[in-house]
């Protein structure tokens, strides 16, 4: 089922919760709306569900404009943040609800409903809980019930609103993988709303990063990590060292971390520089008087994670070789393999690297 969202605007009073949002989803895709709270992602989800309506713009599901279609006629499954299970109904009755409220001529026979509920209980792996009430089961089980209830109506589109937020960390990881597995089996186009980048990275085929009512970038997790279009995305997705810098005569200068010869094509002025820890390589200095001092070493499986002091900043990096010689207090060299520069307006600057040796080693591939 395709979903096409065009130039959606939704205002609450003077605030625009959605400020011209456009997005197109492929059939069967698992997409995530990722952003801090207040970025408009839940509003967008509610509009898709038919629980809220836009002030401008259009939503088409499977090619049909759903502007005037109320929630009950959309056939969109929703898993709510706090599950919203019907507290006075058993789990089986909860799952059967969507089938029982159908008009008589579309309603399956009672025996068929019971069979369908049993199948769904199997699917979400809680067949023994049919007769319990929602407050008699655990958070993870409630989440499975909410999912089964949404799937019962055979939705064309499945919406998940922060579905893992109420689970504790251990259960969350497990349920997350299970949900992704279920999606791969059923192939329903799904939209996940979350503020947790790990969750979005692990689950989604593509992620729409939202900030203040706009989608700032929509792409695969890899593309967001490697090719952030704005400073907001670079800071929000993945770990990054943020440094202040300045472009003078087209050359990048950073006080704390002198890197060699990076040409910036934009205008001169202050810039923000992002360096992923994996792109900041720390190695013992052959001259025994390197430019940075190791502050902290965290041993990990392959390459140690290192915190180094560069001028006034503490930067995260990795030590791919000679890990044993990298100890707190040792002077080292760093090589920046890759960096991203954003102008004052948050937009990305085009870079050009002219390789030249400096105090700090430098690499290419910018």
């Amino acid at each position, binding site marked *: 089922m395709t979903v096409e969202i065009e130039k959606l605007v939704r205002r609450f009073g003077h605030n625009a919760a959605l400020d011209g949002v456009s997005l197109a989803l492929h059939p069967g895709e698992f997409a995530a709306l990722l952003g801090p709270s207040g970025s408009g992602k839940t509003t967008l989800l509610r509009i898709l569900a038919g629980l809220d309506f836009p002030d401008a713009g259009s939503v088409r599901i499977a090619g049909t404009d759903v502007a005037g279609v109320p929630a009950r006629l959309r056939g969109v499954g929703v898993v709510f943040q706090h599950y*919203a299970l019907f507290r006075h109904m058993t789990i089986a009755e909860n799952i059967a609800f969507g089938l029982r409220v159908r008009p008589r001529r579309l309603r399956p026979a009672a025996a068929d409903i019971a069979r369908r509920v049993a199948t769904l209980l199997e699917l979400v792996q809680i067949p023994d809980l049919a007769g319990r009430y929602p407050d008699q089961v655990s958070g993870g089980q409630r989440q499975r019930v909410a999912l089964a209830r949404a799937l019962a109506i055979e939705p064309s589109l499945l919406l998940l609103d922060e579905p893992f937020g109420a689970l504790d960390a251990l259960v969350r990881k497990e349920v997350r993988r299970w949900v992704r597995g279920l999606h791969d089996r059923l192939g329903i186009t799904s939209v996940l709303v979350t503020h947790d980048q790990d969750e979005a990275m692990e689950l989604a085929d593509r992620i729409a990063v939202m900030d203040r009512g706009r989608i700032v970038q929509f792409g695969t997790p890899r593309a967001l990590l490697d090719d952030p279009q704005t400073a907001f995305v670079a800071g929000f997705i993945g770990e990054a060292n943020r440094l202040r810098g300045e472009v003078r005569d087209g050359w990048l200068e950073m006080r704390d971390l002198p890197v060699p010869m990076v040409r910036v094509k934009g205008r001169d002025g202050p810039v923000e520089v992002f360096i992923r820890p994996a792109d900041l390589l720390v190695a013992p200095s052959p001259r025994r008087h390197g430019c940075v001092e190791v502050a902290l070493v965290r041993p990990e499986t392959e390459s140690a994670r290192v915190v180094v002091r560069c001028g006034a900043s503490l930067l995260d990096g990795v030590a791919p070789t000679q890990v044993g010689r990298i100890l707190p207090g040792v002077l080292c060299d760093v090589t920046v393999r890759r960096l991203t520069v954003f102008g004052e307006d948050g937009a990305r600057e085009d870079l050009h690297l002219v390789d030249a040796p400096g105090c700090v080693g430098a690499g290419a591939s910018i």
Partner: protein
Amino acid sequence: MSAATQDPAPARIALVLLGAALAAAIFLLPLAAVLAEALRRGWEPAWTAISDPDSIAAIRLTLLVAAIAVPINAAGGIAAAWAIAKCDFAGKRVLITLIELPFSVSPVISGLVYVLLFGAQGYFGPALRAYGFEIIFALPGLVLATVFVTFPFVARTLIPLMQEQGREEEEAAATLGAGGWQIFLRVTLPNVKWALLAGVLLCNARAMGEFGAVSVVSGHIRGQTNTMPLHVEILYNEYMFVGAFAVAALLALLGVVTLAAKTLLETLTARRIGEHA
């Protein structure tokens, strides 16, 4: 309760005793006195007073007024609570204040307002009379006054509960294909049914016992527009103490039965919740 927040034993016992003594003095003593007065000359005179045709008429009228007013207030209370808890609209605060108005206005004033509106010299009285509608000094007036005075009970019981429950379940029901009525009957109403019953019972107790507003619009026509509280007053003013206290005891009994039913419901609800936890 944790040990830290627990008062020392003597203080606790003293507090409980004080509370119990106050409750007994204020509530139980008068109730006992009413019963004692009613039965002062034995069961026979009391029964005669209650089975007097005027008394029977008063009992019947009281039950009839409650039977009309309580369903009206149940429906109105549910509608108001639904609007306040589940919808956003301008003037919500005003509506909440309006609902509480009967609690803060003297019942006599509300009765007088109806006389002013529908009485023989009132704004609409003559016109209605021309078409054969009697409101003041008749059943419609009694029902109107009772509805006004007892309106807040159902709404006030439901609003906090419905606000606490939020809208998520209703929204979930809508996404699953349920229409407005289905959502109301299958989700909203079952979620508040115990509170609704409690509110209805309280409303009923007040409706049967209402004196002030009803007194103004009734006209005190014996056997016709006298409700039980008014009948008690008339009997008392005519020095028919046994009769007055007998009818009063019956009225009190109706109230006590209502309260007992409410307490029973609350106990059952608590147990049901306990089972689920």
